[in-house]
């Protein structure tokens, strides 16, 4: 089962890689965006889907990494490797600090705490003007160079994002089938049972929380380069809410589902924006629709039917 799914995913990645040169620039940039949010959604799935921890602060780590990259690249002219390391490190450290507070709580408490912590980061982005430039954000982030390869045009950047997404998917896929990942699933099922079996539940949850922040940071690094602009909207609540919907829509606990959910939301958002400005209205309606009619998400519903 796992091997077959990996094969499918490899085929999808290969198909994307082969198709990309034939695509016009606009669909290509949308696909790039879908890949970036796919990484973000997968990072959240480790918490929500596998560990049963509904985080509403995922944009905090995404945004922290994006800000780090944007500031270092524009003000210090730091290259790709330095920016990526700094961004991912900042996201990881933020998650490590927030995790100490959030992991003490479960269920609804966890949701509220992660939301409030996420808003703290938003508040810093918005009000700490001397560092973050406040509402104006950091603009003019240049696309990086990878060795001799210039990532400025859409196609090379797409390939870059594709490789990073494939790597993230592989690593997270290995994580969730590892003994550690199975421990997380056990915690989702029953925390007290895992405790009784001698598992260090706190440590499992904490490590999952920090790793989730790390991968959200990976997505944030890509986003800063992709968008060329980082502002408070990247760390706002709606971004975390969108990430949560991507997971819920695709199917929590399936890894590939949230990535699909991310793709759908990105395409829907861009498609809708051509016709109307009422994106939040539609996002809200999709949210309610998913909860009412597909509580297991798309992939969850498909797997349920097969059984």
């Amino acid at each position: 089962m796992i091997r077959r799914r990996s094969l499918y995913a490899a085929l999808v990645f290969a198909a994307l890689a082969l198709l990309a040169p034939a695509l016009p620039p606009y669909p290509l940039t949308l696909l790039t965006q879908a890949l970036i949010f796919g990484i973000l959604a997968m990072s959240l799935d480790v918490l929500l889907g596998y560990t049963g921890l509904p985080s509403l602060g995922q944009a905090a780590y995404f945004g922290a990494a994006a800000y780090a990259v944007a500031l270092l690249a524009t003000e210090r002219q730091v290259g790709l490797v330095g920016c990526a390391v700094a961004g991912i490190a900042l996201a990881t450290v933020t998650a490590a600090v927030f995790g100490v507070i959030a992991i003490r709580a479960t269920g609804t408490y966890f949701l509220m705490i992660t939301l409030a912590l996420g808003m703290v980061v938003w508040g810093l982005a918005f009000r700490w003007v001397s560092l973050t430039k406040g509402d104006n954000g950091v603009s003019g982030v240049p696309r990086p160079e990878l060795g001799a390869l210039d990532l400025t045009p859409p196609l090379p950047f797409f390939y870059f994002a594709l490789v990073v997404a494939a790597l993230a998917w592989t690593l997270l896929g290995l994580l969730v089938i590892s003994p550690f990942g199975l421990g997380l699933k056990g915690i989702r099922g029953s925390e007290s049972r895992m405790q009784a079996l001698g598992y260090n539940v706190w440590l499992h949850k904490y490590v999952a929380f920090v790793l989730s922040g790390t991968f959200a940071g990976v997505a944030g690094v890509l986003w800063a380069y992709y968008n060329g602009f980082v502002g408070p909207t990247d760390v706002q609540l709606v971004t975390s809410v969108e990430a949560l919907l991507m997971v819920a829509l695709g199917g929590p606990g399936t890894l590939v589902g949230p990535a699909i959910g991310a793709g759908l939301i990105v395409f829907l958002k861009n498609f809708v924006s051509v016709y109307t400005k009422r994106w939040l209205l539609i996002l809200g309606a999709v949210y309610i629709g998913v909860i009412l009619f597909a509580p297991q998400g798309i992939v969850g519903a498909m797997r349920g039917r097969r059984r």
Partner: protein
Amino acid sequence: MTAEFWITQSFNGISYGALLFLLASGLSLIFGVMRIVNMAHGSYFMLGGYVGLTVVLRTRSFALAVLAGTVAIALVGMGMERLFLRRLRGEELGQVLMTIGFALIFQDLALLIWGGDPYNLPVPAALSGSLRAGGAVFPVYRIFIVAVAVVVGIALWLLLDRTRAGAMIRAAVDDAEMAQGVGINVPRASLAVFSLGAALAALGGVIGAGFLGVYPGADFEVLPYAFVVVIVGGLGSLPGAMAGSLLVGLLDNFGKALFPELSYFTLFAPMALILAIRPTGLFGRS
């Protein structure tokens, strides 16, 4: 840092805490009975402010605005509970996600109806101006907010502690299944509490609009404050909501006055501290 600074800022903090109490007490009650965190609670606050604004501009009556905002949003909350949330009874995450959906819809609808400009809700002449005591200045409107919160707090306490309906609600908070078993209509109690919570948030919204204004995004800006209040005070506890509101109001106000760039950070400290010492909040039960 004169004595006046401390007195004025403390008073501002207390009055902001009073506003937070209106918002957070409903959130806490709803959680107590239904075990869900209502993500649309900030939306009720904002929508209450907008409805109040429209009414006050049409009728010139502040009292009418308070009444209209409160009743309208209570009905919105009632509809949400009865038509949507009830279908997901027992599915906590599903219910929370659904309230997020509503919060997004409300935000966009408010933008559609009232536009993107910030407004100030005109307050009656009797409530404007300020009192002076020594060098300290006390705006009358802020005194009014504290008075409203005190009245609401006492009324809630009387309702919960001294009436039959309150006893039913308390029973549902303690053990919904057992309450249902002894003949208490828990779904009806949920509906009542949800509407009451929405009405309180809207009341806070109309009154808060008098000094914070109403603007797009106010919903999500105020929501974490309400959350931190109930995290600090303990979910489902009225005294907790009171203590939490005061603490958060004071800390936030001093934080903003002393470190303006790090204002939201003032939320972080009390939450981290309380959770480290008492994970269920000051008055919460595990």
